[in-house]
């Protein structure tokens, strides 16, 4: 295994650093019908997602239920077969591994399930639930085994005497701790957390989130955090990917995405979060209707059926990935002026942006400048690394800038929509006339463009 790793590292230095690289991953589930069970169509659960993850990071996938978050997580772990694309874990394509190699790799990638009530065997004592897998994989020598399990349980907030108890004797929060201990006992590098707190109460949620973050710091874990609760996501993650109907429509660092949500879906999603403050002015974008069927997704941009900025082009062309800000990539025609990037290049930029943000936060201007790409001027870095009070000010300034920027966008969009309406009415008027007579030049052009 060690040999494998080094040989790959010699090929590309970049790939050795990154823990996980997902390239154009697709998962389709066949729909079978009729007596012969012929495949009549596919449910496109995950439709072309790409991202990279580096050790110690947390990436969150957010989106409505049915958008393919969980399937993406499972496909990355090779628990559900992929349809296309690659998943590289430490430079190895996990779909190329044979059974033996995969078994050796399994302990490094673990999963925490959503429902702690149904994911623990009711017939096994807790000690056995946690110890079963490490024993199979020979994680520690036999002599130290008991001490090791005790240590894992202690790290997860469980007492050694809990070993002989059964899952039904525990509350929801305790059970989730058992699930976490089970995943952690294999000494993994990468954990997919599939909605780990959504089945828990608010105060218990806080305990589990704190535990996950403590363990990350302690063991240098990498998380893929799947959740629909945006407030939790904001608390825990470094990177955010917003999914809609199997597509990763927007991704960027947490700071970027929360400060400036670009995709109309992300904006709607963020505006829907209830804020526990009665004075908060609601400026809510309410999405009409519900998510379309992934078996028959709309043509063009998948979101166009519910989008308030929907344009003619949205119905025909799938939007490419536009990099609006360094490391902030969005699949939306609204940002057509921005450079188009390959998904993975976007991920690299995202990584750099994250490093910049981290360095900026720690006040290391020099290193920040070193890692920063040429586009980022020194002033911007300085503005991010001001002292505590000054930073609050500049944060306000950043927000102001963001707001102004959004306003400009809105105005631009309104203009665009007004233009579109004009064009449509002109086209309709022409059709009413139904005369192939003299057409004004501009309207015939627009009609062509409409078609």
């Amino acid at each position, binding site marked *: 295994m060690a040999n494998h790793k080094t040989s790959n590292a010699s090929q590309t230095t970049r790939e050795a650093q990154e823990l996980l690289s997902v390239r154009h991953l697709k998962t389709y589930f066949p729909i079978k019908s009729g007596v012969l069970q012929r495949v009549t169509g596919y449910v496109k659960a995950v439709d072309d997602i790409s991202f990279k993850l580096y050790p110690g990071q947390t990436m969150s996938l957010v989106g409505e239920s049915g958008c393919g978050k969980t399937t993406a997580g499972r496909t990355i772990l090779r628990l559900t077969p992929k349809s296309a694309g690659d998943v590289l874990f430490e430079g190895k394509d996990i779909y190329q591994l044979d059974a033996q190699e995969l078994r050796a790799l399994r302990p490094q990638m673990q999963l925490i399930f959503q429902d702690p009530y149904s994911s623990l065997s009711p017939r096994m004592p807790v000690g056995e639930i946690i110890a079963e897998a490490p024993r199979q994989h020979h994680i520690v020598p036999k002599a130290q085994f008991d001490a090791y399990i005790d240590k894992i349980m202690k790290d997860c907030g469980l007492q050694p005497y809990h070993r002989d108890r059964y899952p039904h004797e525990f509350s929801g929060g305790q059970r989730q701790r058992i699930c976490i201990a089970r995943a952690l006992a294999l000494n993994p590098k990468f954990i997919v957390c599939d909605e780990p707190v959504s089945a828990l109460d*608010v*105060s218990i*949620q806080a305990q589990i989130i704190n535990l996950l973050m403590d363990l990350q710091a302690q063991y240098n874990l990498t998380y893929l955090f799947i959740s*629909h609760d945006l407030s939790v996501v904001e*608390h825990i993650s470094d990177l955010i990917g917003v999914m809609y109907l199997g597509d990763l429509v927007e991704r960027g660092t947490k700071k970027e995405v*929360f400060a400036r949500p670009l995709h109309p879906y992300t904006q709607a999603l963020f505006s829907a979060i209830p804020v*526990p403050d*009665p004075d908060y002015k609601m400026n809510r974008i309410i999405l009409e209707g519900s*998510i379309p069927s992934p078996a028959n997704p709309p043509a063009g941009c998948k979101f166009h059926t519910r989008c308030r900025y929907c344009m003619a082009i949205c119905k025909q062309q799938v939007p490419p990935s536009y990099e609006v800000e360094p490391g902030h990539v969005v699949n939306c025609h609204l940002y057509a002026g921005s450079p188009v990037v390959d998904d993975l290049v976007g991920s690299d930029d995202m990584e750099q942006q994250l490093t910049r943000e981290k360095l900026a936060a720690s006040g290391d201007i020099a290193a920040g400048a070193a890692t920063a790409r040429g586009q980022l001027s020194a002033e911007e870095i300085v503005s991010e690394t001001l002292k505590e009070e000054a930073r609050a000010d500049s944060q306000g300034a950043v927000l102001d800038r963001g707001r102004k920027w959004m306003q400009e966008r809105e105005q631009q969009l309104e203009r665009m929509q007004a233009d579109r309406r004009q064009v449509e009415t002109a086209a309709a008027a022409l059709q009413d006339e139904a005369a192939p007579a003299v057409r004004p030049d501009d309207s015939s052009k627009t009609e062509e463009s409409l078609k």
Partner: protein
Amino acid sequence: MARKSQKSANYLSARTIRRTAKENRRITRQFEQKLNRKHVAPSEYATTMKDPANVLEVEDLKTYFFTDAGTVKAVDGVSFTVPRGKTIGLVGESGCGKSVTSLSIMQLLQRPQGQIVSGAIRLTQDQGQAVDITQMPISAMEKIRGKDISMIFQEPMTSLNPVFKIGSQLDEVIGLHNPDMSREAVKERTIEMLELVSIANSRAVYDMYPHQLSGGMRQRVMIAIALACSPKVIIADEPTTALDVTIQAQILDILRRLKDQINSSIVLITHDLGVIAEMADEVVVMYAGRIVEKGTVEEIFKHPSHPYTLGLMASKPVVSRHVERLYSIPGNVPNPIEMPDYCYFRDRCDRAFAPCFGEYPPMISLSPTHKVACYCYQQSADTKE
């Protein structure tokens, strides 16, 4: 050895269980007999509202569950009022008695174990009259349930009947409470209700089965059923917990709009403080079957006073409020069968001091509307007087 002693702490002998069960049967039989009576004179449960501006008054409600392991005091002395046209939010963790309170109001408790032991639930009727739901037999309750007071349940996936069409499930409610309406009129009313909850193709949905609808659509149908007879009080028991944020926004929007349209009041039960801040006019915070704090929404969110309310607010991550670590309330909820005789929150409270070792704290008024059950505020209340 350690295991054995632990076992003995929770161990109940067959004999004890049999004795408790027998005693429970004796108690519940009395309640059941009272509930199952027929032809009860309306004067027996008629009452008057303390304040005519209220539509619902709950006073010192006690709902117990008589289980074989002991009596669970799920709701232990809860009092609150619902003014006309307002929304009351009931907040608390699971197991704190929110749902049992609402089920008591609807008389939908799991009988015979669950019984309203004492207290009064007054629901306003026409011409300044009122009824006491705790005194009503089941036969009388059936007439007002769904008509004057109705409920939206937590799980839209399981609370619709899978073998009946959406239309017939709605028709049933309307037809039952309006016996002189013709079948066509009922159908028209049903379709009107479906349109009211923003279901686009209401005529097609009328002939659909619940499995053909998404979660958000099913919850809309549930709202339509609950609102079909323009009730005075709507109890919404976690109406959006099972839904996504975007769908949640739609549903809350509908609820708010329709509440004003049919001029009713909402009792909103949830554990999401964000939803409460957005929807409620007044907030009631419950802990272990008792109210620990109540007040207007501004008072609760601007000046949360009870340590539990504070803990609840601190433990919820909020977008754009950055904290290094989330606060989590230490310890666990006390065992519901053997509740302590001091403040239920004392063992988890970081402010506990000498008076907390006495009996359960009384409700202390911080302002005419803001009340809190905590000894920390005893002094400030005394000096004010």
